[in-house]
């Protein structure tokens, strides 16, 4: 290794190293590969980014719903000890009940939320096909898609939610 022999050279070398961008932080993070991350990589964006392979139909969804969801959300999504999943009365004021069909701006949120958080006692227990099927079933109950439609990575982001334009960005200067 070259050893600088005068103070000026030493200062110059230290300066070059310290401004290289590598010497400032501990660099103790371990590089993460897509394969290592796969089990956690579950975010879905509104344009469909992140949606996995697989698909599901409303009739498959109805069967899964009866077995795993109806005990809290009621038969046919009518609500029970937890939120109802059908209903589309217009939002008028703060006492209007926010439902999927009258409020949620994007259908992708349904897939994202079911997959990460449901069923409440067994999150992450559903296969991607089952999540697609439940998403299709709930959208169909709300007549946002037809009874025989299939949901997958291509069809789901195309579902237009009725309240997409119902929002005002509160602090646009902070985005």
């Amino acid at each position, binding site marked *: 290794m070259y050893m600088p022999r005068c103070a000026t050279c030493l200062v110059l070398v230290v300066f070059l190293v310290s401004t290289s*961008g590598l010497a*400032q*932080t*501990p*660099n*103790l*993070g*371990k*590089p*993460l*590969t897509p394969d*290592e*991350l796969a089990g*956690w*990589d*579950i*975010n*879905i*964006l*509104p*344009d469909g*980014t992140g949606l996995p392979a697989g698909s599901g139909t409303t009739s498959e969804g109805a069967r899964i719903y009866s077995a795993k969801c109806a005990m*809290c959300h009621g038969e046919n999504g009518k609500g029970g*000890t*937890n939120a109802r999943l059908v209903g589309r009365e*217009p*939002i*008028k*004021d*703060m*006492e*209007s009940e*926010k439902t999927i069909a009258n*409020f*949620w*701006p*994007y259908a*992708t*949120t349904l897939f*994202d*939320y079911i997959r*990460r*958080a449901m069923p*409440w*006692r067994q*999150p*992450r227990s559903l296969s991607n096909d089952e999540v697609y099927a439940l998403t299709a079933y709930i959208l169909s109950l709300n007549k946002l898609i037809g009874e025989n439609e299939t949901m997958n990575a291509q069809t789901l982001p195309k579902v237009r939610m009725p309240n997409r334009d*119902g*929002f*005002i*960005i*509160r*602090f646009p200067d*902070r*985005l």
Partner: protein
Amino acid sequence: MTNPGKESDKRLLNLPVVAGNGLLHRRAFLRGGTALAGAMTGYSLVQSASAQRLVDDPWSLEPGNPVPEYGTRSRFEKDVVRTLTNPKGEPRNQHARTPHHLLNGTLTPNGLHFVISHAGDPDIDPEKHRLAIHGLVKQPLVFTLETLARYPMVSRAAFIECGGNSAPLFSKEPIQANVQALHGLVSCAEWTGVLLSTLLEETGVDSKAKWLVAEGADAPHLSRSVPVTKALDDAMIALYQNGERLMPGNGYPMRLLLPGWEGNMNIKWLRRIQLTESPGMTYYESKIYAPIVPGGKAYQFYFLQEVKSFITHPSPGLAMKGPGFYEISGIAYSGNGSIAKVMVSADGGKTWSQAALQEPVLSKSFTRFRLPWRWDGSPAILQSRAWDEAGYAQPTRAEFVAVRGETSRVPAVTAFPNEHYNAISSWAIESTGEVKHVYA
């Protein structure tokens, strides 16, 4: 009650009143010195009718208890607790509210910090916990708690407030409840950890990245979207809360701290941050924390917790013990930065007196305000109003309702008819000494 025969009390009675119903100058007691302080009565101080000889009580006559490994407060403080909405952990969320009316100062004790858990507090083994940062970065990285502990850290005080704090005040009629029930979903702590910007410097940030989606390791894998500008400004991976590791309910072993921003975004049990071009439109930003405004539209990305204050002493449930001198005190805070000024009224907002602010006044943290008051025993309405350094004033309730609306029915005190309420609170002092929640 004061004794008019004492010299110090005569001096108290001569202090100039600076606003209606007996509000004194904020430095009146500082000027008056210890003799005046000794003449103050508290909310619970009992006056003895006759002289009482001071004696040695049993605890002064024998050695006390062994010192425990981890200290707990006196058994006489057992009633100073959070209130719970779902103590059996039924399949829904849980709320634990801070008893502000029983605390003082600016930092919330760790066991009393408010908590909302959407599916209970996970029991995380810190050795197995990981923080992954990926997406629109140059090099995805994963960190252990052990490696993060070797990074440069910072400490700062910051309040965290649920977007639904103070929601009972959306009610068309004032709900009779104490300050814990009305305003208990905000707390303040000193947080210590690694700035997120330090870690993003190591991963590198793609110029296309405008957002990040942060996710917890809890059962709902709760996720929220945060603008990258906030991440690079003052966001922290918090590891310590008031000097010790985070409490399980506050995100052990690590949480995202976004000073001044909506509590739900300060992701607890943080395990993953994905940098993205667009927000995730997660459940909590699509539905829950999108407050409906009159007419039917809803606010999206209501990130900021705006300037707010409320009086904790006296407050509903803390009865006054007769006319005399009291200290009015309370909490003020703003997501915009430091508190610039707090004014207090004892006549429902007709006249105001400037409160003293307890130093140090810290950005995006609780500021304790105090003002001496000579209550003459007649009805009064106490209010506090805060201004922040950005120039924003806490609105009156009428100003607030004109924009945000109110309910048509009286909701349950634990309900959340809407979010982001920051208007003035009013406490009516009745001649009996009882304190009631009113709109004024």
